């Protein structure tokens, strides 16, 4: 209703180009997805067979879950850069629980989720208590926990049957039930459930409302009696928690722990979250927008790989997409 009343009153004053711009900023993302799909299908017949909705969703599921974490941190006008390292840390922990300590799936997952929350504790301490600017605080923790994960493994990777760096042989194996988490359809279901739950949480619960309100005007929220610091802390706990789930999904998918495995997810996740801002003209960080943003990034990546763009050049494209998403968000904010 808001949207219609406003666009009516505006369109009287504005000319056609402005209206077109308005339309593009709202629906441009979805339009771009359709254009990309059409383009890749026409130019590359193999894309058509590979690019069914299931493959696309599977390929973006980990990015999406991590991006949802960033989205939650964005709701309080924060920014969690440490999610990539959290994913690495969670991947390392969960695989080590299997390979080094021979634990079962539930125990491995629970221990991993609990231990990674240390990152959230540090983040919220730096940001809420010490009042360090979000971006810088999480930049620091990004490096800290990248290092923690590496130190924990002794600077290497972990996989089944591989001895530890000091030569101790390992006997644990990764349970097949755990590996299922990384397979389609389960990995897609997990992602969709997370998107749905976070969507409901942000839009239909008191807590989601407060997160947005705190992000909109922190001082006004404080003077409205909202415990601002508690909600900012909550946002960082949720972003870490979601990134850790992303890391566990990653571990299940690749069946091992690799050096800095999560780092590569940071940029597409940030891009997805910011593309999500503008989808349907919501102009706020939101879960469904983030999912659509991740789809866009995923299609682009898959299509380009198929066009045999070398993997080492992909970052150029991803970086450009991020820049465009940011440009749309901030250009509109400025006016």
């Amino acid at each position, binding site marked *: *209703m*808001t949207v219609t*009343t*406003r666009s009516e009153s505006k369109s009287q004053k504005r000319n056609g180009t402005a209206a077109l711009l308005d339309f593009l900023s709202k629906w441009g993302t979805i339009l771009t997805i359709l254009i990309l799909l059409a383009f890749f299908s026409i130019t590359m017949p193999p894309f058509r067979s590979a690019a069914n909705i299931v493959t696309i969703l599977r390929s973006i599921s980990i990015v999406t879950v991590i991006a949802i974490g960033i989205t939650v941190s964005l709701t309080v006008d924060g920014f969690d850069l440490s999610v990539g390292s959290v994913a690495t840390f969670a991947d390392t922990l969960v695989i080590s629980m299997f390979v080094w300590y021979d634990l079962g799936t539930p125990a491995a997952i629970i221990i991993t989720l609990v231990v990674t929350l240390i990152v959230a504790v540090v983040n919220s301490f730096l940001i809420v208590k010490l009042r360090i600017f979000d971006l810088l605080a999480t930049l620091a923790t990004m490096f800290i926990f990248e290092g923690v994960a590496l130190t924990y493994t002794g600077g290497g990777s972990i996989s089944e049957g591989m001895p530890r760096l000091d030569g101790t042989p390992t006997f644990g194996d990764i349970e097949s039930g755990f590996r299922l988490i990384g397979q389609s359809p389960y990995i897609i279901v997990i992602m969709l459930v997370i998107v749905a739950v976070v969507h*409901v949480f942000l839009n*239909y*619960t*008191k*807590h989601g*409302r*407060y997160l*947005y*309100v705190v992000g*909109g*005007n922190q*001082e*006004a*929220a*404080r*003077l*409205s*009696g*909202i*415990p601002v610091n508690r909600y900012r802390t909550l946002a960082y706990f949720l972003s870490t928690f979601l990134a850790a789930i992303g890391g566990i999904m990653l571990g299940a998918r690749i069946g091992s722990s690799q050096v800095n495995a999560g780092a590569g997810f940071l940029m597409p996740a940030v891009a997805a979250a910011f593309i999500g801002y503008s989808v349907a003209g919501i*102009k*706020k960080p939101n879960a469904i927008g983030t999912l659509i943003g991740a789809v866009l990034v995923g299609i682009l990546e898959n299509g380009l790989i198929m066009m045999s763009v070398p993997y080492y050049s992909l970052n150029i494209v991803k970086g450009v997409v991020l820049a465009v998403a940011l440009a749309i968000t901030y250009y509109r904010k400025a006016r």
Partner: protein
Amino acid sequence: MQNISIEFPGVKALTNVDFQVESGTIHALIGANGAGKSTLMKILGGAYNHYSGTIKFDGIEVEMRSPADAKKLGVAVVYQEVDTALIPYLSVAENIMLDVLVNEMGKKQLVKWKDIRASAREYLQRVNLKLDVRTLAQDLSLADKQRVLVARALAGHSRFLILDEPTAPLSQTETEELFGLMRDLAQNQNVGIVFISHRLPEIFEVCETVTILRDGQVVTEQPVNALTQKQVIEYMLGRRFDETYPKAEAEIGKTLFEVKNLYEADGAVRDVSLYVRSGEIVGVTGLVGAGKTELCKTIFGALPIGSGELLLRGRPLKITSPNAAVRQGIALVPEERRKEGIFVEEPVYINLTASSLDDFCGTLDLVNSKAERETARKVIDDLKIRTPSENQKLAFLSGGNQQKVAVGKWLITDAEVYIFDEPTKGVDVGAKHEIFELIGQLACEGKGIIYASSEIPEIMGISDRTYVMYDQTIATELQTAKTSEEEILFFSAGGK
């Protein structure tokens, strides 16, 4: 200055103002809030380029359209917020010589530190400040920062200094020292000084001539010793357009809320005791900077309480944060509405329920959107908030309607004590009237109301009893029916 006029969209801020200062004298510029002091001062500082009228300097007509013009002519303004003019992480020397460094370097690229420091030391001496010029500006006290700014003005060859409420943040001794400096500059260094202050005793102490503004016009210009404090106040108030105050006849009951010996942790409020009875509207007035806003915020837990007691119905309250205050039945409508009271990017209904969302939550803290919107619509009707629907983004509402939303938020919480801090600021006459009606209604429901405002006519119109603040504490308590605007202004200005 002759015939100076300036208009802003919708307001004529100054009309045909004549103002003159001689070098070597101290000239006071006073007026009530909104009389046009700051506007006049900003024109002198070159901040506006759309004034009409003429400005003469040594009898020659000049243009004063930009800060650079003002600087060239040797007019410098020391604004109240000294921190905005200093660069905190540069040394005192660099701050003093900033204009020189920026404007007089010419083609030279290298800074001669020795020369810079030597001249900075010289100017520091002229303002009688003993400091190492390498100290960083951020490490100085407020009083010293002011002096550094004065030194900068001297370094820029200023012949006229405009001091905007320089004494507001200073202690008694610091104020005395500043006056000493002002006299020295005027008498021995032939600098003309325009002194703006709300504190009447200071004007009588240090100034020779006074110009009084009211509603954008000069009412009088006279030698200070030809006037009494009382006359000055009369000139400042003049005859005012009488606004009507809807006075709801609320029954005043027992003491509802009490504040005992309240101190703010950093001394922004000192030793304040007051009480509010149910159904009573208690005014808190005083000049800008007297501590009204700080008092409101301290009671509400938005500023840290140093010591003191707060009692509601005789029971002590434990207020550690605004969140705690809200849960214990206290509401605050803050002064800086856009910054502190509303969420402009959110729709009206989200703004209205921001403090009472708990009441609309069911299982799993899911918000009952239907009940929430219904309540929002009721408040919109009750307060006559002009909006197409409860879904309208707040940014598209007018200032008065935004203010009503900021008030409406607290009606839903059903608090017991309502604190209003300058609720009519930036609100048109019609909306003002409605806000007064609303406050009257709250009183009729037996709530306790604290109404803080520096608009004395409002306090006279709406309050039952009023406290006057001066210098972060309560100067006196007055029965509104038995006092006058003159008396309130007398106490506000530090009279005893």
